[in-house]
């Protein structure tokens, strides 16, 4: 309950990782796939992306990293990986299983 301005937006600014503006979605994926607690999950993602832990919430640095690695960016550019394409790259770079990526492979000729 509670309107999105009060809840989702306030928490995102007060203590969130910023989602795709940073590496919030990537740290979340590691937490979900490996059950890692936050410090461990941040360190894991930072190592895989070859950045520092403090870079993970910096939208300027992460914008470039995400664009370079084709992990999906906030303002999609022509030719960049989007949606499921980006998730294929995320699974490979983070070395995790992503359910819908595996499903996509199984249901197409690439599987």
């Amino acid at each position, binding site marked *: *309950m*509670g*309107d*999105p*301005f*009060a*809840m*989702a*937006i*306030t*928490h*995102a*600014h*007060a*203590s*969130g*990782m*910023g*989602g*795709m*503006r940073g590496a*919030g*979605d990537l*740290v*979340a*994926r590691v*937490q*979900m*796939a490996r*059950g*890692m*607690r*936050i410090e461990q*999950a941040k360190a894991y993602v930072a190592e895989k992306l070859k950045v520092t*832990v*403090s870079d993970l*919430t910096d939208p300027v640095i992460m914008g470039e990293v995400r664009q370079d690695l084709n*992990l*999906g960016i*906030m303002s999609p550019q022509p030719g960049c990986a*989007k*949606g*499921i394409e*980006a*998730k294929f790259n*995320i699974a490979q770079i983070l070395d995790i*299983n*992503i*359910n*819908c990526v595996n*499903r*996509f492979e199984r249901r197409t000729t690439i599987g």
Partner: protein
Amino acid sequence: MGNILTRYGDGTVLEMSEEALMEDLQRGSQDAAERGQIDPLTQSELEHLGDIFKCPFRFLSVEPGNEVILTYDAGTLKIRRVGVNVDRIQALQIYEKIMGADTMELNHVDYSYKPVKPIITMEQPILEQALLVTHIPLFYGAQPNLGLYSQPDGPFPNPGELMPMGKIKEAQQSYEASVAHLVADIVSAASAMYASGADGINLDTTGAAGDADFLAALLATEKLKTKYPDMCIQMGMAGEFVLGMHSELTYKGERLAGMYPHQQVKMAEAAGATIFGPVINTNTNESAPWNLARTVTYTKACGEVAKIPIHANMGMGVGGVTVNDHPPMDIVSRSSKAIVEICRLDGL
């Protein structure tokens, strides 16, 4: 030091002296410590909370580097609830691209596993399409909501009617029969959504109907993890205290009735949950400092014993957040900062 502007648990404005503020912080923490039989906050933690409330700014945040992951319950429903007429895939994209969400949840407006089960084939294609165009992890979520299994909404005799008649055994039997049906519904719906590619399953507001409701969520989690070992299951609670509506139900030899968050999380771990969401309810008659100190005390004890990630529930009416459809950001941001900084949290 002048008077401090804060609020009551219902959101109305309250002016407090510094002395009254510190007294409320201490009382709130002590209340949690006595009920949960856990340690109260230390003097330095109480002073940190005091500093947060004394700060005159309308919005506060954690220091850089202390950010945590955000997960959501009733995710897509919150866009419809405010009357924004977009479909659910668009709602997911709004959260992902406009609201800085780290994860998101697809859900149905009738947010319980029982009503979702017969329409699950209508839910699956929505998720399957959403997963093609989004980037952040997507949960599918609903509430266990055991209350839907008793008459007049469900097949079993209503324990609420049986108990006043002294039919305690019959009421307990009704709860036990309901548990089996709820477990089957959760497993059925969650399996279908996982087969469609969901990154995780959210069991939201677990324990709302008491210990039997909590037991069903634990048993369903256990079955799902046996079936899909890689499945991420987030178990968010309904309240700080598991109501003993049945009162004698156990899981792994532990009585569920009366459990507080630091005990609930051990049950969630034993069942195989990936993420646990403790809930501390807001008392509208007490001040925001009292509520937040109480929340932080319970949640800190939970985070300290947890082996799995903890995402504290910080929505309207829980986690020190005021009970109002439009919670003021001065309280929400203070609660967000305080709980992340003092408790060992992995997300909200």
